């Protein structure tokens, strides 16, 4: 079924990461507080980076490496925006009145 040991190991790893991402979806749905959900969403973004890297090894192509960078940047900016919004109620501060 698999051509080499590398393919077998990559498929096992992809399966394990899929299970891990499903568990994180459980935490996103159930999580008692909003920071729990944001933290689980951040971990889902990190798992997406790992899935993209494994897929680009499996397909033997380097076309997905920009996707890794983009998902990383977008996940980080999303987490920072969510945490600033939770803490202060606004994301970009205008401190012109003091």
């Amino acid at each position, binding site marked *: 079924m698999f051509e*080499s*040991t*590398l393919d*077998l*190991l*990559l498929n*096992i*790893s*992809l399966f*394990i*990461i899929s*299970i*891990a*991402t499903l*568990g*994180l979806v*459980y*935490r996103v749905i159930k999580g008692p*507080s*909003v*920071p*729990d959900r*944001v*933290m*689980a969403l*951040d*971990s889902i973004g*990190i*798992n997406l*980076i*790992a899935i993209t*890297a*494994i897929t*680009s*090894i499996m397909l*033997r192509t*380097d076309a997905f*490496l*920009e996707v*890794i*960078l983009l998902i*990383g*940047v977008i*996940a*980080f900016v999303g*987490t*920072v925006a*969510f*945490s*600033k919004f*939770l*803490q*202060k*109620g606004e994301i970009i501060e205008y401190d012109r*009145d*003091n």
Partner: protein
Amino acid sequence: MTETINTFIGVVVLLGSLLSLVTTIGLIRLPDVYTRSHAASKSATLGVLLILVAALLYFWFADNYFSARLVLGIVFVFITAPVAGHLISRAAYYTDVPLWEKTVQDDLKTRERPKTKKEVENRQKAHSEA
């Protein structure tokens, strides 16, 4: 030789995915948001770093192509994932998410904390007066 290197790369990828599984187990099993941030920031970062290093090694040995974009991604994830974990647990503490009931010590408790809602009200008052 190539088969040995490929198997080594596969084992590194498997280690990284097992660390991602550890992240999920921590996020599901641990009791409150602060201990969960401990699991989410450390092991998720290490797991994705192992997988990205394995991809870098694979393209280096198989295609003889050292990907600078992948190095950039590794450095970026290594810098930003702990920063994101720190920011989200800080936001959790300032929005009064309760600690676990068996917590024995809270070092930030005695200090004067900025009350976020009061700050927002003061700011709105200043806006309406102006």
